[in-house]
């Protein structure tokens, strides 16, 4: 029983991709809290925050798998299937980075040097802002589908993407500055800690890069 014709409509991937992005953003956002506790030397709370990040990362993985399964080869879609899968892969890198960073810091009980702390937090939150900007563009995905990737909606998304690019440029500058300061004080710190600090800074910067790449992926979808 039932009408066969309803079965020709595959489940839309739009809402799942948007939900996945929400989770990814939450994981990134938790990093701000995480480093506030690290700076406050409250390792109990740091551990709690880390658990939350790991949980969100797992959730994102699960959501990613669902989307992959849903996007079967036999679907006829307005955008290339590979482009959508790429987009989800890039989104999924954000919680992975958040997990890696928090893992490094917890594993080595890595404290941020006092002179760096304030700048470091700004750096983290700007990268999280970039992820937020990416989420904002992904929140327009349903509208893009509605208009068939044309017209004023496309202009709007292009504007959002250029805002996102600006934030990312800012994070690059912040990252360079952090490195410069770290370089000037590294002689006084434990060499191994310094190595890992560089690594942590790099990974946090990668969050901004991934956010920017989400914008690039959306552009690809629109230019189809």
């Amino acid at each position, binding site marked *: 029983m039932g009408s066969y014709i309803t079965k020709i*409509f595959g*489940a*839309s*991937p739009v809402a799942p991709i948007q939900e996945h992005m929400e989770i990814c953003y939450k994981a990134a956002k938790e990093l701000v809290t995480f480093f506030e506790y690290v700076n406050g030397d409250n390792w109990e709370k740091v551990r709690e925050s880390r658990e939350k990040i790991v949980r969100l990362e797992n959730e994102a993985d699960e959501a990613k798998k669902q989307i992959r399964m849903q996007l079967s080869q036999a*679907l006829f879609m307005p955008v290339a299937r590979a482009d959508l899968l790429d987009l989800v892969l890039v989104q999924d890198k954000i919680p992975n980075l958040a997990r890696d960073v928090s893992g490094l810091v917890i594993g080595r009980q890595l404290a941020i040097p006092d002179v760096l702390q304030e700048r470091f937090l700004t750096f983290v939150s700007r990268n999280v802002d970039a992820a937020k900007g990416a989420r904002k563009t992904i929140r327009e995905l349903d509208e893009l589908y509605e208009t068939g990737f044309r017209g*004023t909606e496309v202009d709007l998304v292009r504007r959002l993407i250029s805002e996102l690019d600006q934030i990312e440029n800012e994070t690059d500058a912040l990252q360079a500055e952090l490195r410069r300061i770290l370089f000037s004080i590294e002689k006084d710190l434990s060499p191994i800690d310094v190595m890992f600090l560089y690594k942590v800074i790099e990974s946090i910067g990668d969050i901004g890069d991934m956010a920017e790449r989400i914008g690039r992926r959306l552009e690809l979808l629109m230019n189809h």
Partner: protein
Amino acid sequence: MEHATIYLILAGVFGLFMAWGIGANDVANAMATSIGAKALTIKQAIVIAAIFEFAGAVLAGGEVTSTIRKGMVDSSAFIGEPELLVYGMLAALLAAGTWLFIASRKGWPVSTTHSIVGAIVGFAAVGLGVDAVKWDKVGAIVASWVISPLSAGIFAFLIFTSIQKLILEQKDPFARAQKYAPIYIFLTVFLICLVTLFKGLKHVGFELTTFQAYLGSAVLAVIIAGIGRFFVQRITVDEKAEKKFHYATVEKVFAVLMVITASAMAFAHGSNDVANAIGPVAAIVSVAQSGQVLQSAPLPIWILMLGGVGIVIGLATYGRRVIATVGSHITALTPSRGFSAELAAAFTIVVASGTGMPVSTTHVLVGAVLGVGMARGISAINLGVVGRIFLSWVITVPAGACLSIVFFFILKAVLS
């Protein structure tokens, strides 16, 4: 004619059963896009379907009925043996009905049109001889099965592209939608009425000149567009929904338009598919009453009404439940898409009805949906299912034919 009453009763029963089957299974397909796009509730869909299926069957079902009744089989094959036509048409009804029953039980996509055409060609070619089939006409029907989904796809592409250009791409899509909605309604009603009136309503005692047909269609279209405009103007912006999805209010406008196209779809379906049930009945009634095969006998209106009533009963008894299952599916279809697909499909089917071509409502609708998809309108179309729906007629035609051959020889042995 001997046994005339038995033939009449059998024809009536089989025809009603077939019409019931169409109402029970097929109407859901015609209404699926409206319900899937949440433009209509299930109750509204059932009421609209009942009214417009009946209207379509009675007002515009004549041409296809006459094709099924006498277009495919050469009447000279029955000279001296008019009973053969009765057995054949009874066999065709039974075969199509049985095949529909089996297929819908198994959940296969079925087309009543393909099964009845296959059944009639089957009994005629095997029971009477290959020459008894008017192959040119059958060829034209088969060609229409390819052409109709194709042209519905092209129409749907054009309609949806016009919606994108005029409304969705613009800065003020809601104001635009309100402005253009009455025009789209006018076009829908005008085109459907024009085709219907052009073919004439002689059988319901209505004869119109070309001018009158144009005028009548235009007047009715203006009235309905006016009513539509009233409802569209009343729509207010839903701030909360708009925040989540900026086109929520625009889609509400299209939901109003979809009420019109859903009606058009039901009308179109009734006009084309009623023939599958009552075409054979009409042939049997004509032979049983006159005792001979008359090529020019008029089609009594009560037969069309019988078909219409059968469809509505099928809808009321069983089709309701099928429609309810459609409603529970979450589809990637918004009203703007559903509107484009339905308008294109309804227009194509009504034109086919006017020219006497029995086409498959489902195939035409699928073609229209693909057309919208081509315009980047639908987030995901399952091509595997599309392929299975189109391929189904490759099985349905010979299945209907084989069954009808078997029934033909059984009936011939039993009744004569």
